[in-house]
């Protein structure tokens, strides 16, 4: 596993290449926006996307958990694409999730896509959770925060370097107040960090941890502006 280390509100954190956030001191892995069963969510409209996104998301997650073997896992909301999602998961996919929730101290934070996650798959359900000096929730409350870690926006950065355009998922952090995680799910697109909605949340200085092909790149705001497109 490749990751990059950074500090958030005084805590040492790892931004993993998979999009997971690792909090070594508390033995905690945080992932956001899994959007499980998104592929099958269009079926009722007659759109049949390849139904392999859930198993792919779960396999990647399994790799992360096996590697870091945490005590606690926090899913930052939108873990399921909709409230019916668990019904559409295949039995073997549900089994994997049940194993996860048995093995780890598992917390489902509720999101706008899954306001009421099913209890049948195990794990605790919460709208937000505070641990030490950090607060975990799905959507940032905006305005003044401190040590807040959230998801929801699926941040990604679009850059142009030496004439080559590239686009990748990223973490975005102002160092103390607000950290937003990239989406972990297979079929999840992203919102460019230069979008006014995200820019408004990071008016001061910030860093991004960009998920490249083989490593995580740490880019400060100043560098980003040079390569923006």
């Amino acid at each position, binding site marked *: 596993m490749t990751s990059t280390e950074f500090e958030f509100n005084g805590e040492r954190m790892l931004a993993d290449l998979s999009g997971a956030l690792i909090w070594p001191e508390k033995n905690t892995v945080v992932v956001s926006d899994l959007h499980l069963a*998104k592929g*099958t969510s269009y079926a009722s409209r*007659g759109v049949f996307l*390849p139904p392999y996104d859930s198993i792919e998301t779960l396999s990647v997650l399994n790799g992360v958990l096996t590697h870091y073997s945490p005590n606690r896992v926090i899913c930052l909301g939108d873990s399921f694409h909709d409230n019916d999602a668990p019904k559409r998961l295949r039995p073997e996919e549900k089994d994997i999730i049940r194993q996860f929730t048995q093995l780890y101290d598992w917390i489902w934070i509720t999101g706008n896509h899954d306001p009421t996650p099913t209890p049948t798959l195990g794990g605790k359900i919460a709208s937000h959770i505070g641990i030490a000096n950090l607060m975990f929730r799905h959507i940032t409350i905006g305005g003044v925060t401190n040590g807040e870690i959230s998801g929801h926006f*699926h941040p990604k950065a679009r850059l142009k370097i030496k004439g080559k355009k590239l686009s990748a998922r990223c973490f975005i952090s102002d160092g103390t107040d607000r950290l937003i995680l990239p989406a972990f799910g297979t*079929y*999840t*697109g992203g919102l460019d960090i230069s979008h006014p909605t995200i820019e408004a949340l990071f008016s001061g200085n910030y860093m991004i941890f960009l998920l490249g092909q083989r490593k995580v790149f740490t880019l400060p705001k100043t560098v980003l502006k040079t390569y923006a*497109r």
Partner: protein
Amino acid sequence: MAQLSSNHQKTKYYRKKKPAPLPAIFENWFVSNGWRPHTHQLKILEIAEQQSHALITAPTGGGKTLAGFLPTLIELANNPQGSLHTLYISPLKSLTSDIRRNLEVPISEMQLPISVSIRTGDTKQSVRQHQRKKPPNILLTTPESLTLLLSYHDASIIFKTLKRVVIDEIHVLAGTKRGDQLALALSRIQQLAPKCHRIGLSATIAHPIALSAWLAPKGQANLVTRIEGSSGKKFKINLLKTKQKIPWYSHSALHTMEEIYQEVEKAQTTLIFVNTRAQAEITFQALWKLNKKGLPIALHHGSLAKILRLRVEEEMASGSLKAVVATSSLDLGVDWAAVDLMIQIGAPKGVSRLIQRIGRAGHNLDTPSRALLVPTNRFEVLECKAALEAAVEGTLDDETPRPGGYDVLAQHMLAMACSHSFEADKMYTEITAAAPYVSLPRVIFNDVLDFIDHGGYALRTYEQWRRLENIENKTYKIASQKVARRVRMNIGTIVESQMLQVRLGRQKILGKIEENFILGLLPGDTFMFGGHVLRFQGIRNMAVATTLAAGSEPKVPSYQGGRLPLSTHLADRVRSILATPQKWPELPNQIRDWLGIQSRVSVMPKSDGLLVETFKRSGRAFLVAYCFEGRNAHQTLGILLTKRMERAGLGPIGFVGTDYNIAIWSIHPVTDINELFDEDMLGDDLEEWLAESSLLRRTFREVATISGLIERNHPGISKTGRQMTVSSDLIYDTLRRYDPEHIMLRVTRRDAARGLTDIKRLADMLRRVKGKIIHKELSRASPLSVPILLEIGKETVGGTHKDMLLDEAETVLISEAFATENIL
């Protein structure tokens, strides 16, 4: 479409066999207008009587559309009916309104009891409803609207009485996905109205038999009678004789604008064709700057708002414009009587295209069309010369239609399932009666059926949400009206990239521009669009907000609509001109000198071999190969050659390809040229590159959209909504990992391979030049290599410094190339 004007006068009568005489009312109508019918117009009457299929090839202005409608007008005059008689299909929505206007003239002048109506994507809901309740005698429509009509349950009633289908500009449709869609629709119509016959109208083309086969049921060309209109327009075609220095490297012909302006002034009305939308903007701006006399000159290209385009077309029709600068957006359409000059800026890239464009000038069949070719740089002089020769000799170079796409098939079958239940066997028979699908394997048909039914995945995940209701494992129909609505909403085979509206000030919408171009701009940047220099302010309410930017240097739109590679035929001719010094006296002096010096300091490329020059420049080893296989093929070749050089430890740094040649620069020089160009490069390296290339991803996106695997991006979807839709790239990657033999991946690979005609070109070239490569080691750049070396500057430098650097680079290079001659 013929405007019914006096150009019919002098045409000879069809004499061999006395044709069916015109009914008196028609005879009188022709006479009262001072016209005589064309031969092919009479011949079609005979064929119509026999109810056989026909292909009419005639140049524009040849009255072939009237020919297509003449039998219908006569039949309906003799036997009025209250139902659908003739269907007219056009590739362009705008053409249908022109056709209606032109049909209404004879109908009202002869007071014929005939109703005509249009149905396109723009037709109002109320009109559509009415058309289905009470169909007109003649319905004018497009392929998309036709499939939509056929998807309704009452299609069998509406089309039952149909006698004839007239397909206009069939050469534009055949071989494309829109053509596939149309062919499938025609096959369905043949089921509903077995006696219906087809008339195809086409410009003069290279492969009339292939086109006849495309038109015919079951692809049987012998069922189609070919009617040739007059032998073609006479035309006078010349290269612009410029007094200016012909640029080494340029795509804009700015050096000739004064001269072009003078030509425009002299002519009555001029059509100025360019190859890309960016060129259209630049040309229009340049002419406007020179336009001291305030001549009415307009701009027309596919990105402009429809209302602006329509206005230009109307002004052209009424003769109130002096000139219009256009891209292929004006390749088709009604003729404008007043146009007496066609100027082609930039090389035409293909002969058939050039001839069709020439056809847009000199509407009158008996007056020769006048055409002027304006090369934008030195190599284009050669290409224009080659095109001119080919046009005069009439050697056309369009391609034969290819077999039908499976994505279109999926869309069509879903649409048909909305209309009525079908049996798989009968549907297979119906599909294979459409020419592009005659050799469709049954297994593929079954896979496509599975795909539209439940996605066709190895995991049978969607069995419970099927789109089709399967009755006794035999007949299929659409599962619900909800699904049917979605299917109908997504009919069509044109997949556009994300476009954003361009808004000037608060109100005015100028047109649409690719989102990717806009994302490359920063607020304050300027660009040319719709004939204005605009300052980008930002994206507001899903539109590009701009203000007018006076007097600043614009960043040109990067959109490259309609950039075609050099055709094989023209490439052959260019090579032959280079290899034949006897032909050089016909070339401008500057070009002759250029070639002359090349043959002294290096050699000329031969007709059949391949010239490769190598030399050192600024500490780097350069290789320039004169392949003449077109930009796309050279792009692929560049990737493959640099891969090989990488492995050989030569340290390739970069490459650039033009339509004519390719240049590669590296740390170490290539020693064994023959080995480098060995044809085995098309093996593993190519496979590996293809699998990762954006080509497959792009193709997958198109295939997935057309087949209904992913939904179209509907306009007005908000930016934040983006993260909720699933990108085709993500689907492609997942599918490749979990279901690599899924029908959509097979379709993608097939389509991509077909799109790679360039690779076939490469393969042909590598085979052809084997053992015939001339390697010339030079001490410095050769004259022939100068244009592509200047292109390198263009690739790596941007902004306004570009010109300065280019100027500098140009001076250094030219003096280097000519050092031995002391010419400059």
